[in-house]
Protein backbone atom coordinates (compact mmCIF):
# COMPACT_ATOMS: atom_id res chain seq x y z
CA UNK A 1 0.00 0.00 0.00
CA UNK A 2 1.15 3.48 -0.80
CA UNK A 3 2.13 5.47 2.29
CA UNK A 4 -0.06 8.45 3.13
CA UNK A 5 2.81 10.83 3.38
CA UNK A 6 6.37 10.63 2.11
CA UNK A 7 8.93 13.21 3.08
CA UNK A 8 12.54 13.09 2.02
CA UNK A 9 15.21 15.54 3.04
CA UNK A 10 12.90 18.35 4.11
CA UNK A 11 14.62 21.67 4.76
CA UNK A 12 13.09 24.91 6.02
CA UNK A 13 15.23 28.01 5.82
CA UNK A 14 14.77 31.51 7.19
CA UNK A 15 16.99 34.41 6.17
CA UNK A 16 18.56 36.35 9.04
CA UNK A 17 20.98 39.25 9.18
CA UNK A 18 23.75 36.71 9.62
CA UNK A 19 22.81 34.65 6.59
CA UNK A 20 20.31 31.86 6.19
CA UNK A 21 19.37 29.69 9.15
CA UNK A 22 18.05 26.20 8.63
CA UNK A 23 15.35 25.48 11.17
CA UNK A 24 14.59 22.07 9.69
CA UNK A 25 17.65 20.27 8.37
CA UNK A 26 17.02 17.24 6.23
CA UNK A 27 14.07 15.51 7.88
CA UNK A 28 12.82 12.33 6.17
CA UNK A 29 9.99 10.05 7.17
CA UNK A 30 7.00 8.21 5.76
CA UNK A 31 3.63 7.92 7.37
CA UNK A 32 0.95 5.31 6.85
CA UNK A 33 -2.43 5.30 8.50
CA UNK A 34 -0.78 5.37 11.89
CA UNK A 35 -0.13 7.72 14.76
CA UNK A 36 3.25 9.41 14.61
CA UNK A 37 4.55 11.62 17.40
CA UNK A 38 7.13 14.33 16.87
CA UNK A 39 8.76 15.51 20.10
CA UNK A 40 11.35 18.13 20.78
CA UNK A 41 11.89 21.38 22.64
CA UNK A 42 11.03 24.89 21.49
CA UNK A 43 13.07 25.67 18.43
CA UNK A 44 13.66 22.06 17.46
CA UNK A 45 11.78 22.54 14.19
CA UNK A 46 8.90 20.22 15.03
CA UNK A 47 6.15 22.75 14.31
CA UNK A 48 7.84 23.90 11.11
CA UNK A 49 7.93 20.29 9.93
CA UNK A 50 4.17 20.07 10.53
CA UNK A 51 3.53 23.37 8.80
CA UNK A 52 5.60 22.50 5.74
CA UNK A 53 3.31 19.55 5.05
CA UNK A 54 0.44 22.00 4.59
CA UNK A 55 2.75 24.50 2.90
CA UNK A 56 1.93 26.98 5.62
CA UNK A 57 5.47 28.26 6.03
CA UNK A 58 5.16 31.92 5.12
CA UNK A 59 7.75 34.00 3.26
CA UNK A 60 10.54 34.84 3.96
CA UNK A 61 10.73 31.22 5.10
CA UNK A 62 11.52 28.74 2.31
CA UNK A 63 10.81 25.03 2.11
CA UNK A 64 12.85 22.56 0.07
CA UNK A 65 12.40 18.83 -0.14
CA UNK A 66 13.63 16.04 -2.38
CA UNK A 67 10.21 14.56 -2.01
CA UNK A 68 7.07 15.89 -0.35
CA UNK A 69 4.16 13.71 -1.37
CA UNK A 70 0.76 13.21 0.16
CA UNK A 71 -1.19 10.20 -1.08
CA UNK A 72 0.84 10.26 -4.27
CA UNK A 73 0.27 13.98 -4.86
CA UNK A 74 3.46 15.97 -5.16
CA UNK A 75 2.89 18.88 -2.78
CA UNK A 76 5.99 20.85 -3.72
CA UNK A 77 4.68 21.72 -7.18
CA UNK A 78 1.12 22.51 -6.06
CA UNK A 79 -0.08 26.08 -6.37
CA UNK A 80 -1.62 27.97 -3.49
CA UNK A 81 -5.04 27.44 -5.04
CA UNK A 82 -4.53 23.72 -5.41
CA UNK A 83 -3.30 23.55 -1.82
CA UNK A 84 -6.51 25.16 -0.60
CA UNK A 85 -8.46 22.24 -2.03
CA UNK A 86 -6.31 19.87 0.06
CA UNK A 87 -6.21 21.83 3.29
CA UNK A 88 -9.07 20.92 5.54
CA UNK A 89 -10.53 18.42 3.10
CA UNK A 90 -7.64 15.93 3.04
CA UNK A 91 -5.13 17.24 5.57
CA UNK A 92 -6.13 19.34 8.53
CA UNK A 93 -4.41 20.80 11.52
CA UNK A 94 -5.40 21.36 15.14
CA UNK A 95 -3.57 24.36 16.54
CA UNK A 96 -2.30 24.95 20.03
CA UNK A 97 -4.58 27.54 21.54
CA UNK A 98 -8.32 27.77 20.87
CA UNK A 99 -8.27 31.34 22.21
CA UNK A 100 -6.30 32.49 19.20
CA UNK A 101 -7.34 30.12 16.46
CA UNK A 102 -11.13 30.32 16.61
CA UNK A 103 -12.85 33.27 14.99
CA UNK A 104 -14.13 35.42 17.87
CA UNK A 105 -17.01 36.98 15.90
CA UNK A 106 -18.53 33.80 14.47
CA UNK A 107 -20.62 31.34 16.44
CA UNK A 108 -19.18 27.90 16.95
CA UNK A 109 -21.84 26.32 14.74
CA UNK A 110 -21.11 28.72 11.87
CA UNK A 111 -17.39 28.06 12.07
CA UNK A 112 -17.77 24.31 11.97
CA UNK A 113 -20.28 24.58 9.10
CA UNK A 114 -17.86 26.81 7.22
CA UNK A 115 -15.17 24.13 7.38
CA UNK A 116 -17.62 21.76 5.72
CA UNK A 117 -19.13 24.16 3.16
CA UNK A 118 -15.73 25.31 1.93
CA UNK A 119 -15.26 21.95 0.31
CA UNK A 120 -18.73 20.88 -0.70
CA UNK A 121 -22.18 22.38 -0.93
CA UNK A 122 -24.88 20.71 1.08
CA UNK A 123 -28.45 21.60 2.00
CA UNK A 124 -28.68 23.63 5.18
CA UNK A 125 -30.58 20.98 7.11
CA UNK A 126 -27.92 18.39 6.42
CA UNK A 127 -25.16 20.83 7.39
CA UNK A 128 -26.86 21.49 10.71
CA UNK A 129 -27.32 17.80 11.36
CA UNK A 130 -23.70 17.07 10.62
CA UNK A 131 -22.47 19.94 12.79
CA UNK A 132 -24.54 18.69 15.69
CA UNK A 133 -23.44 15.10 15.17
CA UNK A 134 -19.82 16.22 15.04
CA UNK A 135 -20.16 18.23 18.24
CA UNK A 136 -21.68 15.18 19.87
CA UNK A 137 -18.79 13.00 18.75
CA UNK A 138 -16.35 15.35 20.50
CA UNK A 139 -18.48 14.78 23.60
CA UNK A 140 -20.23 18.10 23.80
CA UNK A 141 -23.43 17.41 25.67
CA UNK A 142 -25.82 20.01 24.26
CA UNK A 143 -24.75 20.53 20.65
CA UNK A 144 -27.71 22.76 19.72
CA UNK A 145 -26.93 25.18 22.53
CA UNK A 146 -23.14 25.13 22.10
CA UNK A 147 -23.42 25.71 18.34
CA UNK A 148 -25.02 29.07 19.06
CA UNK A 149 -22.28 30.21 21.45
CA UNK A 150 -19.27 32.37 20.61
CA UNK A 151 -15.74 31.13 21.36
CA UNK A 152 -15.33 33.41 24.41
CA UNK A 153 -18.35 31.77 26.01
CA UNK A 154 -16.76 28.33 26.26
CA UNK A 155 -13.86 26.98 28.34
CA UNK A 156 -10.44 26.16 26.91
CA UNK A 157 -11.11 22.44 26.86
CA UNK A 158 -14.40 22.91 25.09
CA UNK A 159 -12.80 25.38 22.65
CA UNK A 160 -10.22 22.77 21.76
CA UNK A 161 -12.94 20.16 21.23
CA UNK A 162 -14.72 22.62 18.95
CA UNK A 163 -11.53 23.02 16.97
CA UNK A 164 -11.17 19.25 16.67
CA UNK A 165 -14.78 19.06 15.47
CA UNK A 166 -14.05 21.72 12.88
CA UNK A 167 -10.93 19.95 11.67
CA UNK A 168 -12.54 16.51 11.44
CA UNK A 169 -15.89 17.39 9.91
CA UNK A 170 -14.59 17.33 6.29
CA UNK A 171 -13.24 13.83 7.12
CA UNK A 172 -9.60 14.38 6.24
CA UNK A 173 -7.13 11.54 5.75
CA UNK A 174 -4.39 13.13 7.81
CA UNK A 175 -4.67 15.16 10.98
CA UNK A 176 -1.73 17.22 12.20
CA UNK A 177 -2.13 18.15 15.85
CA UNK A 178 0.40 20.78 16.87
CA UNK A 179 0.54 20.87 20.68
CA UNK A 180 -3.23 20.36 20.80
CA UNK A 181 -3.39 20.27 24.58
CA UNK A 182 -0.56 22.48 25.81
CA UNK A 183 -2.98 25.25 26.74
CA UNK A 184 -5.16 22.85 28.72
CA UNK A 185 -5.25 21.28 32.18
CA UNK A 186 -4.00 17.75 32.80
CA UNK A 187 -7.49 16.43 33.46
CA UNK A 188 -8.92 18.03 30.31
CA UNK A 189 -5.80 17.11 28.32
CA UNK A 190 -6.49 13.40 28.65
CA UNK A 191 -10.10 13.92 27.61
CA UNK A 192 -9.19 15.86 24.46
CA UNK A 193 -6.51 13.37 23.47
CA UNK A 194 -8.85 10.45 24.02
CA UNK A 195 -11.31 12.10 21.64
CA UNK A 196 -8.65 12.65 18.97
CA UNK A 197 -7.44 9.10 19.46
CA UNK A 198 -10.89 7.58 19.17
CA UNK A 199 -11.82 9.55 16.05
CA UNK A 200 -8.50 8.86 14.37
CA UNK A 201 -8.81 5.13 14.98
CA UNK A 202 -12.45 4.96 13.97
CA UNK A 203 -11.90 6.76 10.68
CA UNK A 204 -8.57 5.07 10.02
CA UNK A 205 -6.81 8.39 9.58
CA UNK A 206 -3.13 9.21 9.87
CA UNK A 207 -2.13 11.39 12.80
CA UNK A 208 0.94 13.51 13.37
CA UNK A 209 1.03 14.56 16.99
CA UNK A 210 3.52 17.34 17.66
CA UNK A 211 4.34 17.98 21.31
CA UNK A 212 7.12 18.70 23.76
CA UNK A 213 5.63 16.26 26.23
CA UNK A 214 7.37 12.89 25.90
CA UNK A 215 4.94 11.13 28.19
CA UNK A 216 1.86 12.24 26.32
CA UNK A 217 3.33 11.40 22.96
CA UNK A 218 4.43 7.96 24.05
CA UNK A 219 0.98 7.12 25.39
CA UNK A 220 -0.93 8.31 22.31
CA UNK A 221 1.29 7.35 19.37
CA UNK A 222 2.61 4.23 17.68
CA UNK A 223 5.91 5.68 16.57
CA UNK A 224 8.00 8.62 17.76
CA UNK A 225 10.49 10.95 16.11
CA UNK A 226 12.65 12.97 18.47
CA UNK A 227 13.84 16.25 16.98
CA UNK A 228 16.64 18.52 18.10
CA UNK A 229 17.93 21.63 16.29
CA UNK A 230 16.10 20.76 13.09
CA UNK A 231 17.17 17.14 12.82
CA UNK A 232 15.59 13.85 13.73
CA UNK A 233 17.95 12.43 16.32
CA UNK A 234 15.99 9.33 17.19
CA UNK A 235 13.16 7.25 15.84
CA UNK A 236 11.54 4.49 17.85
CA UNK A 237 8.33 2.64 18.65
CA UNK A 238 6.39 4.46 21.37
CA UNK A 239 6.69 1.57 23.80
CA UNK A 240 10.46 1.53 23.46
CA UNK A 241 11.03 5.17 24.31
CA UNK A 242 12.52 4.14 27.62
CA UNK A 243 15.29 2.31 25.78
CA UNK A 244 16.17 5.37 23.71
CA UNK A 245 19.86 5.59 22.98
CA UNK A 246 20.54 9.17 21.87
CA UNK A 247 21.89 11.31 24.73
CA UNK A 248 19.41 14.08 23.91
CA UNK A 249 16.41 11.77 24.24
CA UNK A 250 17.81 10.25 27.40
CA UNK A 251 18.43 13.71 28.82
CA UNK A 252 14.87 14.78 28.09
CA UNK A 253 13.45 11.68 29.74
CA UNK A 254 15.64 12.11 32.82
CA UNK A 255 14.65 15.74 33.31
CA UNK A 256 10.96 14.94 33.82
CA UNK A 257 10.02 14.72 37.50
CA UNK A 258 8.18 11.55 38.48
CA UNK A 259 5.16 11.08 40.68
CA UNK A 260 7.31 9.26 43.24
CA UNK A 261 10.19 11.71 42.87
CA UNK A 262 12.99 11.30 45.40
CA UNK A 263 15.91 12.82 43.48
CA UNK A 264 17.23 15.92 45.17
CA UNK A 265 18.12 17.57 41.91
CA UNK A 266 16.87 16.99 38.38
CA UNK A 267 19.48 16.33 35.72
CA UNK A 268 19.78 19.20 33.27
CA UNK A 269 20.61 18.81 29.60
CA UNK A 270 24.20 19.49 28.71
CA UNK A 271 23.59 21.13 25.38
CA UNK A 272 27.23 21.48 24.48
CA UNK A 273 27.58 17.72 24.08
CA UNK A 274 25.75 17.26 20.79
CA UNK A 275 24.59 20.69 19.64
CA UNK A 276 27.79 21.35 17.71
CA UNK A 277 26.87 19.41 14.61
Amino acid at each position, binding site marked *: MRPLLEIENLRVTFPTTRGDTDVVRGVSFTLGRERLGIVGESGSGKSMTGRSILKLVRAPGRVYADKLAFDGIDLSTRSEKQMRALRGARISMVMQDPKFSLNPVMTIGEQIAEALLTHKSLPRREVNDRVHAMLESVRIAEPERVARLYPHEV*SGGMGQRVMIAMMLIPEPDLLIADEPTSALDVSVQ*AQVLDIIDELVRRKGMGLIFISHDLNLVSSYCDRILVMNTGEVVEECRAGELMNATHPYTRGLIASIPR*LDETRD*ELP*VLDRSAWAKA
Partner: protein
Amino acid sequence: MTALSLKDLDISYGDTQITHKVSLDIAEGESFALVGESGSGKSTVLKAIAGLAPQWTGEIRVLGKARSHGVDRDFSRVCQMVFQDPYGSLHPRKTVDATLGEALTIHGIGDRNARVEEIMASVGLDRKFRFRFPHQLSGGQRQRVAIARALMLKPKILLLDEPTSALDVSVQAEILNLLKRLRREQNLTFLMVTHNLPVVSFLCDRLAVMRHGRIVEVASVDDLRRGDLKEPYSRELMQISAAHAT
Protein backbone atom coordinates in the same frame (compact mmCIF):
# COMPACT_ATOMS: atom_id res chain seq x y z
CA MET B 1 6.04 29.43 63.46
CA THR B 2 3.22 29.76 60.96
CA ALA B 3 4.32 31.67 57.89
CA LEU B 4 0.97 31.87 56.22
CA SER B 5 -2.42 31.18 57.68
CA LEU B 6 -5.76 31.33 55.90
CA LYS B 7 -8.97 31.05 57.84
CA ASP B 8 -12.44 30.63 56.33
CA LEU B 9 -11.40 32.46 53.21
CA ASP B 10 -14.31 33.20 50.87
CA ILE B 11 -13.21 34.95 47.69
CA SER B 12 -15.64 36.41 45.16
CA TYR B 13 -15.43 37.99 41.75
CA GLY B 14 -18.50 40.24 41.60
CA ASP B 15 -21.50 38.12 42.53
CA THR B 16 -19.77 34.83 41.94
CA GLN B 17 -18.23 33.23 44.97
CA ILE B 18 -15.09 31.36 43.93
CA THR B 19 -13.81 29.74 47.12
CA HIS B 20 -15.68 28.45 50.14
CA LYS B 21 -14.16 28.47 53.62
CA VAL B 22 -10.58 27.80 52.62
CA SER B 23 -8.40 27.31 55.70
CA LEU B 24 -4.71 26.48 55.60
CA ASP B 25 -1.68 26.76 57.87
CA ILE B 26 1.73 26.76 56.26
CA ALA B 27 4.78 26.58 58.53
CA GLU B 28 7.84 28.74 58.04
CA GLY B 29 10.26 27.10 55.61
CA GLU B 30 7.62 24.73 54.33
CA SER B 31 6.85 24.18 50.65
CA PHE B 32 3.14 23.73 50.14
CA ALA B 33 1.24 22.93 46.93
CA LEU B 34 -2.33 23.66 45.93
CA VAL B 35 -3.46 21.28 43.21
CA GLY B 36 -6.67 20.94 41.24
CA GLU B 37 -8.03 21.53 37.78
CA SER B 38 -8.89 24.85 36.10
CA GLY B 39 -11.70 26.60 37.84
CA SER B 40 -11.04 24.93 41.19
CA GLY B 41 -10.10 28.29 42.68
CA LYS B 42 -6.47 27.48 43.41
CA SER B 43 -5.01 30.47 41.56
CA THR B 44 -7.69 32.70 43.08
CA VAL B 45 -6.40 31.84 46.55
CA LEU B 46 -2.92 33.02 45.55
CA LYS B 47 -4.35 36.16 44.02
CA ALA B 48 -6.27 36.99 47.18
CA ILE B 49 -3.13 36.57 49.26
CA ALA B 50 -1.15 38.74 46.85
CA GLY B 51 -3.85 41.42 46.92
CA LEU B 52 -4.98 40.93 43.33
CA ALA B 53 -8.46 39.70 44.27
CA PRO B 54 -9.46 42.14 47.01
CA GLN B 55 -13.03 40.94 47.40
CA TRP B 56 -12.63 38.39 50.17
CA THR B 57 -13.89 37.71 53.66
CA GLY B 58 -12.19 35.65 56.34
CA GLU B 59 -8.65 36.04 57.49
CA ILE B 60 -5.22 36.02 55.83
CA ARG B 61 -2.31 36.13 58.28
CA VAL B 62 1.27 36.43 57.17
CA LEU B 63 3.88 35.73 59.83
CA GLY B 64 1.22 36.33 62.46
CA LYS B 65 0.09 39.67 61.07
CA ALA B 66 -3.35 40.04 59.46
CA ARG B 67 -3.33 41.23 55.87
CA SER B 68 -5.50 44.21 54.94
CA HIS B 69 -7.64 44.30 51.81
CA GLY B 70 -5.69 47.07 50.15
CA VAL B 71 -2.15 47.63 48.95
CA ASP B 72 0.15 46.81 51.82
CA ARG B 73 3.83 47.72 51.64
CA ASP B 74 4.89 45.82 54.71
CA PHE B 75 3.17 42.80 53.27
CA SER B 76 4.99 43.14 49.92
CA ARG B 77 8.26 43.00 51.78
CA VAL B 78 7.57 39.55 53.16
CA CYS B 79 5.47 37.98 50.45
CA GLN B 80 5.97 38.06 46.67
CA MET B 81 4.48 36.26 43.70
CA VAL B 82 5.88 34.56 40.58
CA PHE B 83 3.40 34.23 37.72
CA GLN B 84 2.78 31.43 35.29
CA ASP B 85 3.61 33.02 32.02
CA PRO B 86 7.04 34.60 31.77
CA TYR B 87 5.97 36.06 28.42
CA GLY B 88 3.10 37.99 29.95
CA SER B 89 4.38 38.93 33.37
CA LEU B 90 7.38 41.08 32.46
CA HIS B 91 6.96 44.60 31.16
CA PRO B 92 7.94 44.42 27.47
CA ARG B 93 9.49 47.89 27.40
CA LYS B 94 11.51 47.64 30.59
CA THR B 95 14.99 46.18 30.70
CA VAL B 96 15.81 43.47 33.20
CA ASP B 97 17.60 46.12 35.23
CA ALA B 98 14.52 48.38 35.37
CA THR B 99 12.21 45.47 36.23
CA LEU B 100 14.44 44.35 39.08
CA GLY B 101 15.19 47.85 40.35
CA GLU B 102 11.60 49.04 40.45
CA ALA B 103 10.78 47.35 43.75
CA LEU B 104 13.82 48.99 45.36
CA THR B 105 12.71 52.44 44.18
CA ILE B 106 9.18 51.94 45.48
CA HIS B 107 10.41 50.83 48.87
CA GLY B 108 13.15 53.48 49.04
CA ILE B 109 15.98 50.97 49.29
CA GLY B 110 19.39 52.10 48.16
CA ASP B 111 22.41 50.17 47.01
CA ARG B 112 20.57 49.32 43.83
CA ASN B 113 23.51 48.35 41.70
CA ALA B 114 24.93 45.80 44.09
CA ARG B 115 21.53 44.33 44.91
CA VAL B 116 20.56 43.82 41.26
CA GLU B 117 23.90 42.14 40.54
CA GLU B 118 23.63 39.93 43.60
CA ILE B 119 20.11 38.75 42.79
CA MET B 120 20.96 38.09 39.13
CA ALA B 121 23.88 35.94 40.21
CA SER B 122 21.73 34.00 42.64
CA VAL B 123 19.14 33.06 40.00
CA GLY B 124 21.87 32.11 37.55
CA LEU B 125 21.50 34.98 35.09
CA ASP B 126 24.67 36.21 33.47
CA ARG B 127 25.51 39.92 33.90
CA LYS B 128 25.28 40.48 30.16
CA PHE B 129 21.47 40.12 30.38
CA ARG B 130 21.09 43.07 32.74
CA PHE B 131 20.25 45.66 30.10
CA ARG B 132 18.26 43.42 27.80
CA PHE B 133 14.54 43.52 27.15
CA PRO B 134 12.25 40.50 27.79
CA HIS B 135 11.90 39.75 24.05
CA GLN B 136 15.65 39.20 23.86
CA LEU B 137 15.50 36.41 26.43
CA SER B 138 14.37 32.78 26.21
CA GLY B 139 11.41 31.48 28.22
CA GLY B 140 13.65 30.00 30.90
CA GLN B 141 15.68 33.19 31.23
CA ARG B 142 12.50 35.23 31.53
CA GLN B 143 11.22 33.00 34.30
CA ARG B 144 14.56 33.52 36.07
CA VAL B 145 14.01 37.27 35.80
CA ALA B 146 10.49 36.87 37.22
CA ILE B 147 11.88 34.89 40.15
CA ALA B 148 14.65 37.45 40.66
CA ARG B 149 12.06 40.24 40.67
CA ALA B 150 10.09 38.46 43.35
CA LEU B 151 13.24 38.02 45.45
CA MET B 152 14.40 41.66 45.21
CA LEU B 153 12.83 42.66 48.52
CA LYS B 154 14.19 39.56 50.29
CA PRO B 155 10.74 38.18 51.09
CA LYS B 156 10.09 35.23 53.39
CA ILE B 157 7.25 33.78 51.36
CA LEU B 158 6.99 33.15 47.63
CA LEU B 159 3.65 32.54 45.95
CA LEU B 160 4.26 30.50 42.80
CA ASP B 161 1.48 30.28 40.22
CA GLU B 162 2.34 27.37 37.89
CA PRO B 163 5.93 28.60 37.60
CA THR B 164 7.00 26.00 35.03
CA SER B 165 3.92 25.04 33.06
CA ALA B 166 4.79 27.33 30.14
CA LEU B 167 8.30 25.88 29.80
CA ASP B 168 9.88 22.91 28.03
CA VAL B 169 10.66 19.90 30.22
CA SER B 170 14.40 20.44 30.13
CA VAL B 171 13.99 24.12 31.08
CA GLN B 172 11.41 23.14 33.67
CA ALA B 173 14.06 20.96 35.32
CA GLU B 174 16.45 23.95 35.51
CA ILE B 175 13.83 26.23 37.08
CA LEU B 176 12.70 23.56 39.55
CA ASN B 177 16.30 23.01 40.63
CA LEU B 178 16.71 26.76 41.01
CA LEU B 179 13.60 27.10 43.17
CA LYS B 180 14.70 24.23 45.35
CA ARG B 181 18.16 25.73 45.85
CA LEU B 182 16.81 29.22 46.60
CA ARG B 183 14.46 27.83 49.20
CA ARG B 184 17.31 26.04 50.92
CA GLU B 185 19.66 29.02 50.78
CA GLN B 186 17.20 31.71 51.83
CA ASN B 187 14.90 29.60 54.01
CA LEU B 188 11.89 30.60 51.93
CA THR B 189 8.34 29.40 52.38
CA PHE B 190 6.64 28.35 49.13
CA LEU B 191 2.96 28.26 48.32
CA MET B 192 2.75 26.83 44.81
CA VAL B 193 -0.26 26.34 42.58
CA THR B 194 0.09 23.62 39.98
CA HIS B 195 -1.74 20.83 38.23
CA ASN B 196 1.42 18.83 37.74
CA LEU B 197 1.69 16.24 40.54
CA PRO B 198 5.24 15.10 39.70
CA VAL B 199 6.38 18.71 40.20
CA VAL B 200 4.71 18.67 43.63
CA SER B 201 6.52 15.46 44.41
CA PHE B 202 9.84 17.06 43.55
CA LEU B 203 9.47 20.47 45.18
CA CYS B 204 6.92 20.31 47.99
CA ASP B 205 6.42 18.92 51.50
CA ARG B 206 2.63 18.98 51.67
CA LEU B 207 -0.24 19.49 49.28
CA ALA B 208 -3.91 20.43 49.37
CA VAL B 209 -6.29 19.22 46.69
CA MET B 210 -8.93 21.75 45.68
CA ARG B 211 -12.17 21.22 43.83
CA HIS B 212 -15.05 23.64 43.18
CA GLY B 213 -13.49 26.21 45.51
CA ARG B 214 -13.08 23.89 48.47
CA ILE B 215 -10.13 22.03 49.87
CA VAL B 216 -11.02 18.36 49.70
CA GLU B 217 -7.84 16.89 51.14
CA VAL B 218 -4.54 17.89 52.71
CA ALA B 219 -1.80 15.29 52.50
CA SER B 220 1.95 14.97 52.82
CA VAL B 221 4.10 14.44 49.76
CA ASP B 222 5.08 11.03 51.12
CA ASP B 223 1.43 10.05 50.85
CA LEU B 224 1.45 11.26 47.27
CA ARG B 225 4.60 9.31 46.42
CA ARG B 226 3.12 6.17 47.90
CA GLY B 227 -0.14 6.81 46.06
CA ASP B 228 -1.86 7.02 49.40
CA LEU B 229 -4.33 9.89 48.88
CA LYS B 230 -7.72 9.25 50.44
CA GLU B 231 -10.35 11.32 48.64
CA PRO B 232 -11.73 9.78 45.43
CA TYR B 233 -11.13 13.03 43.55
CA SER B 234 -7.46 13.18 44.61
CA ARG B 235 -7.03 9.60 43.52
CA GLU B 236 -8.57 10.45 40.17
CA LEU B 237 -6.05 13.27 39.65
CA MET B 238 -3.27 10.91 40.65
CA GLN B 239 -4.40 8.26 38.20
CA ILE B 240 -4.47 10.75 35.34
CA SER B 241 -0.89 11.70 36.19
CA ALA B 242 0.21 8.11 36.52
CA ALA B 243 -1.43 7.11 33.22
CA HIS B 244 0.97 9.31 31.30
CA ALA B 245 4.06 8.48 33.27
CA THR B 246 6.51 6.32 31.42
